[in-house]
């Protein structure tokens, strides 16, 4: 009994430096993620600065109404979820493929490829918007003036035709996100025991078979974890992507308006803190529920890969 106690104490002592090293990170999370939590109350109140967040009058769910009271509610919810689902699928598939290809390379060229593929992730969305505009502009764009005439197709007015934008946005998002996404997969891949591949080669398995039967199964826990994390943010849209890249074009709203851009456009005139807080809270709660639900599904199928 005493021995155990002593041992526990020494263990605890031994980890003091580790705990201390954790402290700044914990402090960061406490200050940025936990201290503002009581501020959620502002979503249920009519905010008045002189009365403060907790003194302002209680209005219940009135601040949430604007999200549902509109005919656009269905469109923005549908767009947000469908786009994010497409982003998760497309980016995950491409990231794994790129990671598998990169892992086959070696030497200096690998670094060049990896940097080149990561570069778009470091470009500001505003600039990406103009890069896309350089391609799609009606009068001076590369596609309308070079590509389409070459193929004998008449010019397309990209910024007034909503039906093209799901493809454009998914493409742009993949171009921007794949480099970043493949880093984690590549790091995991490099850690795999090479002997699996060697024995597979001895058994006559080609690259494709190795990928399907070794790489993918070994990557499964990582894929599931990353996908679960993405599902938690499925109700959040990347504001820059949906606002800047279509150049805030009204004619494209039916396929580019998502919850975040809707809230921005609706509230920029009103400047209402409570209504913006309500929108944010709604997105977080739905995201939280979805991630728990997805986790339950994963636990049913593969208990080892579930997060909690």
């Amino acid at each position, binding site marked *: 009994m005493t021995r155990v106690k002593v041992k526990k104490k020494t263990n605890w002592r031994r980890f*003091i*430096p580790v705990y*201390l*090293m954790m*402290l*700044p990170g914990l*402090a960061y999370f406490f200050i940025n993620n936990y201290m503002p939590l009581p501020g959620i109350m502002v979503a249920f109140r009519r*905010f*008045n*600065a*002189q*009365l403060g967040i907790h003194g302002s009058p209680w209005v219940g769910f009135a601040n949430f*109404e*604007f999200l549902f*009271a*509109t*005919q*656009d509610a269905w469109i923005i919810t549908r767009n947000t979820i469908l786009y994010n689902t497409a982003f998760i699928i497309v980016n995950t598939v491409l990231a794994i493929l790129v990671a598998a290809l990169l892992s086959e390379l070696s030497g200096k060229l690998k670094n060049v490829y990896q940097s080149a593929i990561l570069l778009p992730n470091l470009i500001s969305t505003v600039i990406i918007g103009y890069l896309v*505009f350089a391609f799609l*502009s*009606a*009068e*001076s764009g590369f596609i309308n003036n070079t590509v389409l005439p070459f193929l004998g197709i008449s010019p397309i*007015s990209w*910024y*007034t035709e909503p039906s093209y934008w799901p493809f454009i946005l998914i493409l742009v998002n993949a171009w921007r996100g794949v480099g970043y996404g493949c880093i984690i997969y590549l790091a995991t891949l490099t850690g795999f025991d090479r002997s699996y591949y060697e024995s597979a080669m001895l058994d006559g398995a080609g690259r494709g078979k190795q990928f399907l039967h070794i790489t993918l199964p070994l990557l499964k826990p990582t894929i599931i974890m990353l996908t679960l994390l993405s599902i938690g943010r499925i109700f959040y849209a990347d504001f820059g992507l949906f606002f800047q890249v279509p*150049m*805030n*074009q*009204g*004619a494209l*709203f*039916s396929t580019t*308006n998502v919850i975040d851009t*809707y*809230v921005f*456009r*609706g*509230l*920029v*005139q*009103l*400047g*209402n*803190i409570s*209504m913006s807080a309500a929108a944010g809270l709604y997105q977080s709660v739905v995201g939280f529920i979805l991630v728990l639900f997805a986790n339950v599904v994963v636990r049913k199928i593969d208990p080892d890969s579930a997060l909690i």
Partner: protein
Amino acid sequence: MKKKIMVLFTVVWVSVFAIFSLSACGNDDGGTADDGPDELVMAFMTWVLPSDTQMIQDAMNEILIPRYNMSVELLIMDAASYQQNIRLMLTAGEQVDIMNTIMAGYTHLQGQGFLLDLEANNLIQNFGAGIPDAVGGWEILNGARIAGTLYGVPTNCDHAVGRGAIAVGTQFLDAIGFDVPSPNNDIIHISVAELDSILMQINEAFPEMETFRPTMPGGITQFMSIDPLGAEPFGVLLDPVNDLTVSNLFTSQAFYDFISMMYRWNNHGFISLDAAADDTPVTALVSAGRLMSYMTGGKPGIVAQESGLCAQPMTIFQTGPDMMNANAAARFPWAIPFTTANPERAMTLLNAFYTCPELSNLLIWGIEGVHYEMQTDGRVDFPAGLDAGTSGWHNGMAWNMPNQFISHVWMGDDLDLYDQLIEFNANAQISRAFGFIFDPAPVQNEIAAVTNAYEELIVSLGMGMVNPTTGIAQLNERLTAAGLYRIIDEKQSQLDAWVIAVGMN
């Protein structure tokens, strides 16, 4: 050895953390020393942060300390972050004594309780006695009242806007043989038909250039002779001088005519196919040699202003009247937020900036000999070797400062610019609803929905890319479904109540 490294590591982390937490909590209390001058904070925005703020502040305090026993700290933020920063500061209770309400929104700030009543305990009467006269009398000051209470003081600037104004590069007018007056300092008043003919001619003479670029959606309220009763035209006065009926702009004949004109101009190839997606400022397009004309707002000094922005002589045509909207005096007034250390001292400081030419000159133009030199004709200009880019204090914010009318006139503007502006405001048509400020609180859900539907359709319609008949019908259908008429009804009932409250018949 290992242990020592661990200990060292721990000590370093702990000390870093301690310093971090000390500096985070180390805000000075902003309180005033018992015997020193009162320390006040003045907040406003500039487009680019100036580098000589400290120098200007010291020069101001040389005047303020002996005269009023107070000193001022200039809290300057750039335009992009002003709204967010000022709201955060006020929400956190940080001391700000006087501030400009631009970007943050005067009515929003008031609606959320950030601003103090300037007449509580006769504050303005006792400590800001010079302000009413400085802004052109109580009739202007009353224009900043929200539901009868005064929360802000308008800046001295152009309250009216010359409607239907278009800026055209003078070189293109010369090329078609248009007789541009010399000197070309004043707005040229013409009819819409004449404007139409001028644009047709420059379009024929320079087919390779973009002829005209409408500003959308802001151009609608700037160009048309209507009063939007707020920022967006959701429920407007179609005949603001005579009629207080709130109407749907989008079903009006005037709107149909305006959109039809844009449609016709677009079909003549005036407007670039990229106009809707390209957000390059029109003045930059003109100075780059790609565009010939664009919408603007008429006012004294506009010729010099637009010529400067376009880096070439511009001619301004105006087809409509000069008109003052209901909220003309409530767009970006100066206010005293609730986090002031002392409202009486704050009002005294505000009064000083409205009445003291030395302070106004410091605030607007900087220090003589450093940021400007007096010229022989009484105007001021950059000292040798300085320009707008290299000067440490040249903000281009005169219109946003309390009182530019008591400051110097800058080179390039007419020597009597301020008299012209006063006359411009005095002679403009005034909306009968001047002084009415719409409170959006009861219809916020509708405004959020209507704004989204409006932004979806208005730009392509206003740029003449959609057939007016079908486009306007679609716009009305969507806006009606989003609740436009509930906004109109609410505006009308607030306006009717306001009419009774101010005793108008």
